[in-house]
C-alpha cells in the first residue's frame, strides 16, 4: 500500500504533470469563484483537453479542478452573499454577514483554512476507506439510505430560526420545488405544465442563484454604499486562523459529516454543507448570532463541502457508482480511458487511486495558497461602492444560470426564484430550510418507494434503520427542549408590525401548496404521497401565517432599504433578464451595464463606456475559455 502511495507521488516528479495539475486547480478555482458554476462545470471544461494526456495526468487535472471548487466558491459567498456554488450557501449567510461588519478577512481566512483542512481530512478518509468502504456500503440498502435522508431533514430542524412556522413553511416549499419533474416511483411528470424545460426538474444551481443571489444583489443595490458597513478591512486574517483553532472539534465533526454525506449516493456536498451548518447551530450555546455573522457557521459547512468532494470519490472508485454529478464526469473520463473503477481497481490500478489521492491533497494546498494570495485583493471589493460591483456580478450570474440547460427557461426560473428569495428575505422567512428540503426531496422519495417495494414493512425493524432513528431522536428532542427555553427570550426582540410582503408571501405559499395538492389528486399513489406530505401541512401553515403577518408580528425582515426601493432594483434586474431573452445576452448586457453605470452608479459617460467594454471583454474571455453558451435572443434570431 505504501509502495503504491510513494510510487504515485513519483508521478508528480514529472514537471509536466505538476503543470497540468496546476492548470486543473486554476480552472477549478476560477469556476468556483463564478457564482452558480460548480464542480460539474469545473471538470467539464477540462474534458476537451485532458484526452490528449495519459490517464494519470488527466486524472490529476480533473481531481485538481474538483478539489478546489469548494475552496474558491467561498470568496463570492463571503463578499457578495451569493453562493459561489450551491454547496457554500451557509457561508453566503454567515460569512457575508461577517463581511458586512467589516470582518471579510476573518471570514475568508477561517473559510479557506476550514476548506483546506476539510479537504485533507476528506482525502485521509478516502485513503482509509479503500479497505473498509466496500463492506460498509454493502450494509446500506434502500431503507438505510432513506433513513439518512430523513436524518438530514431532522438535522436541519435547527435551521428553522426564530419562528418555527416560517422555517417549516420554507422547508416544505423546498420539498415541493424539489418534486417538480419526473416521479421516481411512478411513470409520471409532476408540476411541469407540459413544458420541456421543467421535465428534469428545477436545477439546484438556478435555485441557489435565485433564492440567494438575486435577492442579495437587490438588497445591496437598494441600500447603496459598499458591502462592508463598518470598519476598514484591517487585519483579521490571523483572527480567522485563531477561530479555526478554537473550534477545531467542530471542524473535525464538520469534515466527518462531509465525508459521510459524500459516501452516501443520495446526499452530496450541498446537503453536507447544510447538515454541517445545522450541526453547528445545534451545538452552539448562544445561537442568537447565527444569521448575523457567526464564525462557527462558516467553519462547519466549509470543512464539510470540501470533505464531501473527497467522500464522493469513494463510491465512484470502489463501485463505479458516482457519488455526485461532478464525480460522474470523472467516472466518465475513467471509462473513456478504459478504466472501470470497482473492487478490482484497488488491485489493478492502485497507483491511479493514489494519483487521485495525492492530486486531491496537493490541490487543496494549492487552492488554499491561491485563495489566501488573491483574497486581500478581492476583499477590497467590499469597500468599493456596490453599484460598481453589482452589474458585472449580475451579468456573470445570468451567464452561469444559462449554462444549466441553455434554455430561456433558465432566465425565467432565475427571476421567479429571485422574487421568491426576495419575498422570503423581506418577510423574515429563513431560506436555509428551503435549500435543504429541495436537495433531499428527490432522494428521500426515491429511497422511500424502493424501500417499500423491495422490503414491504419489515424494514422498520432493521437494526441499521433503528440505529439511524436513534441518532435522529436524541438531538431533535434536545433541540426542541432548548427551543422552549430560549423561545421567550428570542421572541421578545423587535416591535410587532404588519408586514405586506409577509402576508403576500404567505398567500403565495398557500396558492402554491393549494395547487400542489390540487394537481396531485390526479397522480398515481406513488407519485402523490410526497407532494401531499409537503402540500397539506404547508397549506394549513400558510393559511395560519397569512393573518399573523398582516395583523402584526416580529417579522425579522432582513431588508435594509424601504421595500419600494428594493422592488425597483428587483424590477430592473427583471428588465435586464427580459432583455437577454428578447435581444440576446450581448446587447442586453451592453445596454444594462451602460445604463446602470451611467444613471444608477452615476459614472461619467467615458468611464461608464470603458468599464462596460472592459467588462464585456472579460466576459468574452470567460465564455471562450470555458466554452460557455449565451442567450442569443428570441427576436434578433
Amino acid at each position: 500500500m505504501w509502495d503504491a502511495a510513494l510510487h504515485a507521488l513519483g508521478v508528480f516528479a514529472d514537471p509536466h504533470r505538476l503543470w497540468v495539475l496546476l492548470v486543473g486547480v486554476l480552472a477549478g478555482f476560477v469556476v468556483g469563484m463564478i457564482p452558480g458554476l460548480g464542480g460539474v462545470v469545473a471538470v467539464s471544461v477540462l474534458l476537451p483537453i485532458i484526452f490528449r494526456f495519459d490517464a494519470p495526468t488527466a486524472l490529476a487535472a480533473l481531481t485538481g479542478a474538483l478539489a478546489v471548487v469548494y475552496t474558491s466558491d467561498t470568496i463570492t459567498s463571503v463578499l457578495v452573499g451569493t453562493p459561489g456554488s450551491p454547496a457554500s450557501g451557509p457561508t453566503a449567510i454567515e460569512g457575508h454577514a461577517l463581511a458586512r461588519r467589516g470582518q471579510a478577512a476573518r471570514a475568508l481566512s477561517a473559510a479557506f483554512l476550514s476548506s483546506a483542512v476539510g479537504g485533507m481530512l476528506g482525502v485521509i478518509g478516502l485513503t482509509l476507506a479503500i479497505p473498509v468502504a466496500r463492506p460498509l456500503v454493502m450494509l446500506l440498502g434502500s431503507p438505510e439510505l432513506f433513513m439518512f435522508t430523513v436524518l438530514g431533514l431532522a438535522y436541519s430542524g435547527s435551521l428553522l430560526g426564530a419562528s418555527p412556522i416560517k422555517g417549516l413553511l420554507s422547508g416544505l416549499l423546498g420539498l415541493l420545488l424539489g418534486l417538480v419533474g419526473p416521479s421516481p416511483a411512478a411513470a409520471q411528470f409532476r408540476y411541469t405544465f407540459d413544458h420541456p424545460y421543467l421535465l428534469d426538474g428545477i436545477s439546484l444551481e438556478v435555485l441557489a442563484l435565485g433564492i440567494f443571489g438575486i435577492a442579495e444583489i437587490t438588497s445591496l443595490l437598494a441600500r447603496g454604499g459598499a458591502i462592508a458597513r463598518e470598519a476598514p478591512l484591517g487585519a483579521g486574517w490571523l483572527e480567522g486562523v485563531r477561530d479555526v483553532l478554537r473550534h477545531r472539534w467542530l471542524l473535525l465533526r464538520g469534515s466527518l459529516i462531509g465525508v459521510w454525506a459524500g459516501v452516501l449516493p443520495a446526499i452530496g456536498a450541498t446537503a453536507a454543507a447544510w447538515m454541517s451548518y445545522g450541526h453547528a447551530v445545534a451545538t452552539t450555546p448562544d445561537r442568537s448570532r447565527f444569521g448575523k455573522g457567526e464564525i462557527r457557521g462558516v467553519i462547519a459547512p466549509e470543512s464539510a463541502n470540501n470533505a464531501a468532494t473527497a467522500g464522493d470519490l469513494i463510491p465512484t472508485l470502489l463501485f463505479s457508482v458516482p457519488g455526485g454529478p461532478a464525480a460522474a464526469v470523472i467516472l466518465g473520463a475513467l471509462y473513456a480511458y478504459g478504466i472501470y473503477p470497482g473492487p478490482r481497481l484497488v488491485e489493478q490500478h492502485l497507483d491511479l487511486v493514489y494519483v487521485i489521492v495525492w492530486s486531491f491533497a496537493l490541490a487543496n494546498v494549492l487552492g488554499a495558497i491561491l485563495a489566501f494570495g488573491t483574497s486581500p485583493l478581492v476583499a477590497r471589493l467590499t469597500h468599493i461602492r456596490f453599484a460598481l460591483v453589482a452589474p458585472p456580478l449580475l451579468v456573470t450570474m445570468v451567464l452561469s444560470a444559462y449554462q444549466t440547460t441553455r434554455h430561456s427557461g433558465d432566465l425565467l426560473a432565475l427571476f421567479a426564484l429571485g422574487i421568491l428569495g426576495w419575498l422570503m428575505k423581506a418577510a423574515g422567512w429563513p431560506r436555509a430550510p428551503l435549500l435543504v428540503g429541495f436537495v433531499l426531496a428527490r432522494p428521500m422519495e426515491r429511497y422511500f418507494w424502493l424501500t417499500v417495494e423491495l422490503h414491504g414493512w419489515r424494514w422498520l425493524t432493521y437494526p441499521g434503520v433503528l440505529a439511524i432513528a436513534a441518532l435522529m431522536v436524541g438531538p431533535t428532542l434536545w433541540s426542541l427542549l432548548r427551543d422552549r427555553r430560549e423561545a421567550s427570550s428570542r421572541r421578545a426582540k423587535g416591535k410587532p408590525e404588519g408586514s405586506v410582503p409577509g402576508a403576500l408571501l404567505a398567500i403565495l405559499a398557500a396558492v402554491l401548496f393549494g395547487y400542489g395538492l390540487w394537481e396531485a389528486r390526479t397522480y398515481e399513489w406513488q407519485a402523490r404521497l410526497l407532494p401531499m406530505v409537503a402540500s397539506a401541512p404547508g397549506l394549513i401553515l400558510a393559511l395560519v401565517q397569512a393573518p399573523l403577518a398582516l395583523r402584526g408580528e416580529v417579522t425579522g425582515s432582513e431588508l435594509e432599504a424601504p421595500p419600494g426601493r428594493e422592488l425597483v432594483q428587483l424590477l430592473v434586474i427583471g428588465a435586464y433578464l427580459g432583455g437577454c431573452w428578447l435581444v440576446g445576452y450581448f446587447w442586453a448586457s451592453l445596454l444594462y451595464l451602460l445604463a446602470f453605470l451611467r444613471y444608477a452608479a452615476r459614472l461619467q459617460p467615458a468611464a461608464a463606456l470603458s468599464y462596460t467594454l472592459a467588462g464585456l471583454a472579460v466576459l468574452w474571455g470567460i465564455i471562450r475559455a470555458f466554452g460557455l453558451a449565451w442567450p442569443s435572443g428570441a427576436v434578433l434570431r
Partner: protein
Amino acid sequence: MRGLAVGLVVAVALSVGTAWAQAAYYAGKSIEVIVPFAPGGAADVGARFLSPFLEKHVAGRPSVTVRNIPGGGSMLGASFFAANAKPDGLTLMCTTSSTIFPWMFGHPAARYDLARMRVVMTLPFGPVVYVSPRTGVQRPADLLRPAVPLVYGGIAATGSDLPILIALELLGLPVKVVLGFEGRGPIRIAFERGETNLDFQFTPVYLTQVVPLVRDRKAIPLFTGGFPNERGELVTRDPVVADLPSVFEVYQLLHRTKPAGPRWRAYEAAANLTFTYGLSCWAPEGTPSAALQALYEAAERMNADPEFKERGKSVTGGYPVSRGDQVERLIQRAMRPTLEVKKYIIDLLEHKYGVRGLRL
C-alpha cells in the same frame, strides 16, 4: 495486361480524386457533436470516445468538440439540435433510445423529427442479463421455476429498461419489477446486497464488474439481447459475449417454438433501438453527400484502426461502429413499427407500468 494497368491507374486516380474531394469538405473545419445528456453518462462517454477517432479518420481531419445540452430527458438537447443545426455536416448529435422513444410515442416535448434526419454512425450497447444463485436458477431453462420470486430493479419503463421489460413478458417469466433506481450502478449494488436478484448490465460493465461476481459464484449470467443478422432480425449471438445464448434462443428453449407475433417484433424494435444502435449519431436532413460520405468512410477506417479496437474493448465492449448508410433503413424501420406492435408496447407500458400520454 495493359488494360489492367490502365484500370489500376484509373482506380488509383479515382480513389485519390474522391479522397481529395472529401478532404476538401472537412479540411480546416470543425465538427460540433451535441450530446443531449449531462457529462458522464453512457451517451457522453460514447461520444467522447468516438471524437478523437473522428478527428483522426474523417478525411480532412476536422477538429471535433463535444457539447452537452442536458434537460427534458434528452428532449431539450435534441429539440435544440433540430432547431439550430445547419445541414452542413458541422453539427451532429449523438444520442440514445432515450431521445427516440418519446418521439416514437408522440411526446409533446419531442420537437424534432428523427424520420427526417440522417444516420451518420452507430455503436452497439450490448446487454447481459444475470441472476443471483439464491434464486435457484442455474441456467436459462430454470427461469420459469425459480425457488424464490425473481425481483428485477430498473430505472424507468420508458428508458433503456424497455426492451428487457418486453423480453420478460415475451419469455413469460414470473418477475416482480421495481422501478425508480437512480442509475444502473446503484441497481448493481442493490443486486450485490440481495435487494434484487435479476439484473442486466451493458457489456463493458458486465465484463469488468459482474464477471468477478460470476467467478465468486455470486452471479450467474443467463443471456444477452442478441445481435441482428443483415435483415435486422435479432437471431444471432452477441459477438462480444458469444458463449451466452440470446433472448431468441432462450425463448425457443423455454417454449419449444420460435418467437413470433407483435410481442417478438416489439422486442426486436425496442432492442435494436436501445442495444444494436445504442449510440446513434445524426445529421440534419439535407446534409451534403460529400460530408456524409466522409463520415461513413471514417467509420470504416475506425474499424480497421488497431488503436480503436484496443481502446474500444474496454470502453464499449469492442463492437465495431456501423456506417450510417448501412443501418439507416433498419433504424428507420425499427422507429416505425406496425400499428399492432406499437399498440402492444403502449398497452404494456400503460397497464403494467402506469405510463400515460403515449400516442400511436
